[in-house]
Structure formats: structure tokens, C-alpha cells
């Protein structure tokens, strides 16, 4: 128990630290940088690859960006999600049937953990300040899971008022996990992310920090990072930022110093096996970027594919939304089997390729464009991935699909056989942006699972991906087709400019879209975003018959009504009925085509459950299409959107049955081998 004198002394020191750390200096930093320096880290860390451990010490300078004083801190210790099988992360995986057993059966060396060994304030002169470790405790505010160790709290000896700063020293040691979620080590390849005790985000009136969930990523404040990594001599390091120095530490290790301002995370990788490649991104109107690629030796020859994809992302995202603001970007080609591919970190990302990656199919291009694109949607516009992951993943899926469509065509379907090693490229099946890149097939199966408005950490873990990524991409692409790319691009560029280095909310995005497109699109957001309603419009009936009239005329006072029959074989009465099968509402066009080539296009607001249209024309109708331009990409069944009076289903069925028969015969011959 501390004495009153100690407490007073500590309080004085804190007050001094706050005074020194406040106002002028931080404001000056903010002015110099692009982002607010809310949480800045100076880190020394040492990797022991044999023991698979990291020991580190960090000094965090934190400024209270909120509107009330902060009395405590929140620390993310993400690796503790794999400390035991009762963590919230693993419980969620188990809930969704995503292989908890497999994870639980892993050896002890596959698990990971982080342990804070020192937590104290740092005095302005750099000397140790008041201890905070005594108040350190694990918390689980979301699910009250007492076994979870991924989030901790500690009390500040003195409250930190809004706008004031405090410095803290945190030491820790960690067991590097065998990769559970994109971070960990395998063999002599280490991808180290979410690896240091990291402050939560303080917003408005409190901490916005939650445990680590299986279906969410991360959220943190911007700051500056100065990191010194000690690794075995000769090992190649890639990290967020630029390498400032490389110093021989004398014990067969080397210290690599990386520095980066205006980012909200720091990740790194090391291995003796990487091949290093470098190229430049240059553009008439965008700033140049040095691209550094750390490539697996077995992927030698795929350098240009990685660079081309990164260039395409920097170019198109830059042209469409705004410039990439950093002078460098590091592309990490992850080791096979490492589980670290396809993940984004500031100024660094992991791609993912295969030893056999056929040209003409977008592997590794698709993942490279996507993760490079996250530099914009996540890195620069830093929305909250725990609460609204669609804001980065969905916007980015929409954008990367667009880039692939522009820059990497044709893209043929590839399927893999024999343990996934042998690829087969289907030259008959060309993937399309509208359906394949946006993944309507995945979304179709999960359409009703969750409404996007639900906080992401509450999504059903088994299908969160399809709501976060696919549904968002589909409704954004629908919006593009509805309002036009120019308007949508302008709106997204404005959103990018307005919220770069900030933490926008869904409302920020929607209001920017409304404002910049000049349209009130709330009707669409309120359904596509706020509900799990499914869209499905259908063509129900198409008839064309010769005009025939039967009935009584009006008659007169002198003559009773007389029955008449008339028949006009030069005029045809066409009846059309279209139907809204799904709960979702969307205005759609209805296109009727007649034998003489005439077309009639109707506008249907799509509100009622069904809608008839009737025509008398000199020609029979031949086809009916609902949403003929396929504006509504969220429509889960497009086959029922049309009717033709000259159907070719039989021909199609013949064609595909013939192909299937050969497959079945081959299968039967295989089994005949055994008797």
C-alpha cells in the first residue's frame, strides 16, 4: 500500500508531466504532421526466434482527445486472445463452428500471450514516475468473460484533462503464437502485428475499447512511432515506416530502427529468407512512392505482378479518392502456411500468392490491390473496425473490385485440386466485377444473417465477412449504377478528404453521400444498411394475344344493348406482371420487347408487391425484363427477372448435361477400378 506522501509526490509529478506534455508541443506536432498525435509510441523490442518470444519496452505519449478527464487507461493485449481456449475470440470461433477444436488441440507452443511487467508514468525528465501496475486488471466490458485477457485497464494516479498529455512506460514479454489470426511465427518467418500493449481510443466521454473478437479487427488513435527492433544478424526486416538506421548490437543481433508519423498502428516482419525487391510508383499528378517488396524465394518471378497490383491501387485510389500521403509502402509476401496473408497495416501489408499462380487469374493481384487499398480505407480514413467494419472492408472491396475490373482483365476462374496445390484455370469462365468480385454468391447465402447497422462485433461470426465485405460492395456498386460513377466518386473523394486522419462514423459517410450526390438517399440506406431485407424482383407473366373484344354495346332508349364480338389480328394485347418477391424496395425499370423490335421501358417504383402493365401493339411481345440493366446488384435471384416467349432452357440444359455426363462417366470409371 502506498503512503500518502508517495501519492502526493506522484500527483505532483503527474501534474508536471501533464504540464510539460501539453498544449504547445503537441499542437506544434499536430501542425507539422497530417494527423493528430494522440497516441505516440517509442518502442524497443527484441525477438528471440529460438524461444519464440518478444520482450519489449515502450514509452507511450498519450493526449486526451476527449471532452472529459481520463481517470484510467485501456490497454489492448491482443495476443491474449490465444492464451486460453476460453478467450472471447476462441469462444466466438467455437460458437460459429469455426474450428475451436482444431485450435484447442494445438500444442502449448502454438498458443500466445502477452504479459505486462511494468506500467508506470514517466516524468518529464525521463525518470520513472508513479507505478500503475498495482491497479492493472483485465476487463471484459462486452461479454463479462472473466477468462478473457485481451483488454486491460489501469488507473491513472491523476486524471488527465482534455487536451493534456501523459507519458507512460510499459514493459512486457510475449510468447509469439503460431498464427491464429494473421500474426505469429512459423519456422523462421515471423509476422508480428497487434504485438505491443496498445492504448484504446478515447472518444468524447470515455474509452472506446473492446475485447478482441473473432470477427473484428482494430481501432486506435493516430500518432508517431519510433521503433527499434532487435533481430538476429542477417535477417531481413520489413515494418511500418522507413528504416532510419541499422546497428550491430554485438551479440549476433542487429537493431533496425523504423520511424513513421501519422499512423495508428505498427506491424513488422522478419525472416532470413525474404528476397528484397524495390520499385517506384510514379504518376503525373500523384506523389511518388517507393514500393518495397519482401518476396518468398519460391515466388521469384512474381515481383512484377505484386508491383503492378500495388501500382494500380495507388494510381486508381489516388485518382479517384485522394493521394497516398506516405513516401513508401512495404509489400510482404507471406510464407506459405503462415496464415498471415491478406492483412493491412499502415504503410505495410501482406499479400498472398501461390507457387503455381496462373497468369490470367488475379492471384496475387486481387489480394494485393485489396490490401494496398486499405491504406486509404483503414490507414488514412480510420473508421472503427470493431463497430463498423464495413466502412473500411466494404468500401475497400467495392474499390478493389473496380480496380481489378479496370486493370486486371481477363480474370479467369481458378479452382485447385490435390490438397489445393494444383490450380486449374477455366478459360471459359471469366469473373466479373458485378457478381464475382462483389461476391453476390456469398451474400446470397447470408443475406438475412445480420443487418449491417449492427455493431460488427455482434455479427454472427460465421458470416460476418459476407455482410461486411460483400453486401457493402454490392450496395455501393448498386449506388454507382443508380447515381453514376462520377457523382459517387466525387462523394467518396469528398468523404476521403474530409475524414482523412480522422475516425468517421456511418452517419458521416451517409451524409457526405447525400450532400455530394445532391440526392436524398436515406430511403436506400435505411433498407440496405439498416435492415437485413433481401431484394428480389421477378418477371411473373408475359402474354401476347390478338385483340378480341366481346360484350354488349350501350344500346339506346329504343334498342336494347346488343352483343358484339370483334377480332383484330393486326393488334395484340400484351399483359405483363412483375413482382416484388423480397422484402427490399428499389425502383426498377421494366423493359418489354416486341417482335418488331419496339421496346417499351417503364419505371416502377418497386413498392407494391406486384405491378401489371398492358399494351395494345401491332406486334406480339417477345420478352420481359425487370431491371434490365441490372442496377440492383443486391437482387439475389436474377434468373427470375426475365421471361421470353422463345425460351432456350432446353438447349441450355442439353448443352450442360452433355458436359456433366462425361464427368460422371469418368467418376464411374474411377470406382470401377476397385472391382
Amino acid at each position, binding site marked *: 500500500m502506498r503512503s500518502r506522501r508517495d501519492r502526493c509526490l506522484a500527483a505532483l509529478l503527474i501534474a508536471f508531466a501533464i504540464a510539460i506534455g501539453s498544449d504547445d508541443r503537441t499542437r506544434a506536432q499536430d501542425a507539422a504532421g497530417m494527423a493528430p498525435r494522440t497516441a505516440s509510441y517509442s518502442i524497443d523490442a527484441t525477438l528471440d526466434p529460438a524461444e519464440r518470444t518478444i520482450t519489449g519496452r515502450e514509452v507511450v505519449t498519450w493526449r486526451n482527445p476527449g471532452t472529459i478527464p481520463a481517470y484510467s487507461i485501456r490497454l489492448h493485449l491482443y495476443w491474449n486472445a490465444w492464451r486460453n481456449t476460453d478467450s472471447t475470440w476462441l469462444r466466438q470461433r467455437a460458437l460459429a463452428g469455426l474450428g475451436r477444436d482444431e485450435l484447442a488441440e494445438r500444442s502449448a507452443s502454438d498458443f500466445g500471450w502477452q504479459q505486462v511487467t511494468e506500467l508506470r508514468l514517466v516524468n518529464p525528465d525521463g525518470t520513472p514516475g508513479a507505478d500503475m501496475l498495482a491497479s492493472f486488471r483485465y476487463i471484459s466490458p462486452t461479454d463479462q468473460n472473466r477468462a478473457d485477457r485481451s483488454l486491460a485497464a489501469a488507473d491513472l494516479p491523476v486524471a488527465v484533462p482534455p487536451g493534456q498529455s501523459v507519458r507512460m512506460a510499459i514493459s512486457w514479454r510475449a510468447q509469439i503464437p503460431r498464427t491464429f489470426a494473421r500474426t505469429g511465427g512459423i519456422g523462421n518467418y515471423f509476422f508480428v502485428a497487434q504485438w505491443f500493449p496498445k492504448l484504446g481510443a478515447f472518444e468524447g466521454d470515455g474509452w472506446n475499447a473492446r475485447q478482441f473478437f473473432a470477427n473484428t479487427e482494430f481501432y486506435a488513435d493516430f500518432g508517431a512511432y519510433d521503433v527499434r527492433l532487435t533481430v538476429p544478424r542477417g535477417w531481413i526486416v520489413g515494418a511500418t515506416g522507413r528504416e532510419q538506421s541499422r546497428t550491430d548490437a554485438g551479440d549476433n543481433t542487429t537493431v533496425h530502427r523504423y520511424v513513421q508519423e501519422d499512423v495508428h498502428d505498427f506491424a513488422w516482419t522478419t525472416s532470413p529468407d525474404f528476397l528484397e525487391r524495390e520499385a517506384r510508383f510514379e504518376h503525373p499528378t500523384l506523389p511518388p512512392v517507393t514500393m518495397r517488396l519482401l518476396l518468398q524465394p519460391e515466388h521469384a518471378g512474381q515481383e512484377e505482378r505484386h508491383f503492378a497490383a500495388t501500382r494500380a491501387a495507388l494510381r486508381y485510389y489516388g485518382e479517384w479518392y485522394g493521394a497516398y500521403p506516405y513516401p513508401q509502402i512495404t509489400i510482404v509476401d507471406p510464407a506459405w502456411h503462415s496464415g498471415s496473408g491478406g492483412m493491412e497495416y499502415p504503410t505495410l501489408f501482406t499479400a498472398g500468392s501461390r507457387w503455381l499462380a496462373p497468369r490470367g487469374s488475379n492471384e496475387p493481384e486481387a489480394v494485393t490491390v485489396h490490401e494496398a487499398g486499405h491504406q486509404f480505407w483503414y490507414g488514412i480514413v480510420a473508421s472503427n473496425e470493431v463497430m463498423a467494419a464495413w466502412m473500411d472492408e466494404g468500401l475497400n472491396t467495392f474499390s478493389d473490385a473496380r480496380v481489378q475490373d479496370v486493370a486486371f482483365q481477363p480474370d479467369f476462374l481458378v479452382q485447385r485440386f490435390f490438397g489445393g496445390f494444383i490450380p486449374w484455370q477455366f478459360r*471459359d469462365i471469366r469473373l466479373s466485377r458485378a457478381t464475382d468480385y462483389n461476391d*453476390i*454468391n456469398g451474400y446470397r447465402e447470408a443475406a438475412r444473417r445480420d443487418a449491417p447497422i449492427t455493431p460488427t462485433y455482434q455479427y454472427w461470426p460465421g458470416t460476418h465477412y459476407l455482410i461486411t465485405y460483400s453486401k457493402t460492395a454490392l450496395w455501393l456498386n448498386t449506388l454507382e449504377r443508380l447515381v453514376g460513377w462520377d457523382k459517387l466518386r466525387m462523394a467518396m473523394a469528398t468523404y476521403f478528404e474530409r475524414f482523412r486522419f480522422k475516425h468517421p462514423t456511418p452517419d458521416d459517410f451517409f451524409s457526405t453521400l447525400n450532400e455530394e450526390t445532391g440526392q436524398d438517399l436515406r430511403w436506400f440506406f435505411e433498407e440496405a444498411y439498416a435492415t437485413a431485407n433481401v431484394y428480389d424482383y421477378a418477371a411473373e407473366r408475359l402474354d401476347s394475344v390478338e385483340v378480341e373484344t366481346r360484350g354488349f354495346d350501350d344500346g339506346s332508349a329504343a334498342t336494347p344493348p346488343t352483343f358484339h364480338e370483334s377480332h383484330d389480328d393486326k393488334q395484340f394485347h400484351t399483359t405483363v406482371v412483375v413482382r416484388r418477391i423480397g422484402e427490399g424496395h428499389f425502383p426498377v425499370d421494366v423493359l418489354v420487347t416486341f417482335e418488331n423490335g419496339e421496346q417499351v421501358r417503364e419505371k416502377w417504383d418497386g413498392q407494391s408487391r406486384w405491378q401489371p402493365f398492358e399494351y395494345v401493339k401491332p406486334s406480339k411481345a417477345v420478352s420481359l425484363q425487370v431491371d434490365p440493366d441490372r442496377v440492383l446488384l443486391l437482387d439475389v435471384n436474377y434468373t427470375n427477372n426475365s421471361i421470353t416467349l422463345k425460351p432456350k*432452357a432446353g438447349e*441450355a440444359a442439353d448443352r450442360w448435361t452433355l458436359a456433366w455426363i462425361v464427368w460422371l462417366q469418368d467418376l464411374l470409371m474411377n470406382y470401377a*477400378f476397385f472391382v
Partner: protein
Amino acid sequence: MIARFREGLGRVRRAPALVIGVWLTTLALALGPALVLRSLIEGHLGSSMMADTAATGVNFDWWNEFLAQASGIGQSFVPAILGFAAVLDNLSRLADHKSLPPALAGIVAAQVLLSMFLAGGLLDRLARDRAIGAAAFFSACGLWAGRFARLALLAAPAYVFLFLQVHHWLLQQLYERLTHDTTVERSAFAIRLVLYATFTALVCAVNVIVDYAKIRAVVEDRRSMIGAIVAGCRFVVRHPAQTAGLYALNLLVAAVVAAAYFLAAPGASAPLFGFAVGQLYIVLRAAVRLQFMASQTALFQSKLAHAGYVAKPLPTWPDSPAAEALLRS
């Protein structure tokens, strides 16, 4: 061994009806479910305009919509049916022990039963190396069907053990252990290839013993299938190089046929041409299957029986009861 291989080729060449017959059995078995699939496809497309593109090429959007609602046989209508991918898919299914779509289990079972029924007639015809006529062929089929069913019951535990247990040990447990810390895909693939080869060798070992058990049963007119298996085993053990070499040579021919199909298979662009090439490939597969039987029979006959010797009497088709009555009178 090469001579027996050639002799096998000659026997198959001289028995084109058998090749055609084996091919037709697969085609006949496939036609039923194919009609079901056809009606499913036609029913799903209905009068939709999506059929316009599906009738002339690949409409992948429709295909995915079809699969999303498909059940039963419809679930097997996947891109892997196209061209040479079908061969990869089916071999990979066996090598990785992936389950069949349940709706096809009945068809596969029918194929197994039909193959079991035909095996006696095929071996008898190939062992005699001369035309025996349809009546004698089916008489032999009937004669051996029951015995081969007993043989299958004896062989089944070995296959079940291999596919359910040994496969799990090799290609799951051992593979995962060996690649646990592997970071190079090529290395992992090499390990998997070695394990595939090991597993294939074990399956082939069982298969070759069962093959010679059937051959000995037919050529020596054995009633006891346990005795046939023991005899088959003994023959393989006493002639390991020749039986293994001949088997490998036949596998090589199968690989050459697959490679030819790889080069010729047109994909989805020309359905009729694709179907014709596919049928030619199936005919060749049938011939390869018969080549296994014929060359192994020739090898056995060259070692333990003079060529052309078949112990059991030539099957004769009995006259009708009415004819017999007339003859007796």
C-alpha cells in the same frame, strides 16, 4: 513383362465388343441421372432470358444461382465438370478422400455392382482370347457374379481400412505433422506427393492382389474366394517385379490417355465436340481397364497355365425347356 503387356494389348484389340460394352455401361448408368439433371437445369431456367447465354456459352451468374438453390444431383453440377477439370476433380476426390454428393452414391453403387457382375465374363473372354458369343459371355458373368461378390466382401475391409484409416494417418495426421513448420509450398507439395504415392502404392497393392485373385478364380475355376485371394497373393509375392512392373506399365498407359484428353478436351465452348471427345476418352479408359485385365491374365497364364488355358469348361447356353423336352422325346 513387356511381352505380356503387348499380349494384353492384342487381346483387348481382338475384343472390341468388350470395350464398347464397358463404355456403354457407363453411358447407360449416366443417362438416368443426366436426365434428372437436365430437367433440373431446364426447370430452373424456365423461360428466363438467362438461358439465351447459357445455351451458347457459360453464364456463370446463372450457374451460381442454380447452385445456390440446387439439391441432390444438381449440387454436382459445378465448374469442375468442364473438360479436363473433370479428370482432376475425380482423381483429386479419390486422392483427398472427399465424399461424393450423396445423390450420386446410388449410381456409383450401381456401377460397382455392374462391374462386379461383368468382371467374370470379361476375364473369361480375355483369358480365352477368342470370341465366345454373348450367351457364353453372360453365362460367365452370371457364373462368377456370386463368387466375385464374396471376393468383394473379402476385399472391401482392406479398401475401407485404406481409405478411412490409412488415408487419415498419411494425408492428414502425418502430412500435418511433417508440414507443421514448413513455410515453402513446394516442399509441402513434395511431401504430399510422396504421401500420395505411398497411399497409391498401398491401394494398388491391394488392387493387384484382388486382380490376380479374380484371374486365378476364373482361369482355375476356383470356388473358394479365400483360396483365390491366397493364390493371388502367392502369385504376386512370387513374381513381384513382373506383377508390379506390368501394373505400373498399365498405369502409365492410363496416364497417357489422360494426357491425351488434357490436350484434346475443348472445355465448354463446343458442347457436341466436347461430348464426342469425352466419349472417346471414356472408350479409351474402358480399353485401359480391359488392358489391365488382359495383360495380367496373360502374365498369369504364361507363368502357371499355358496360354489360353481356362480350367472351367466353356459355358454353353442351355436350350429352352421346350427344346429339351422335344430332344428327350
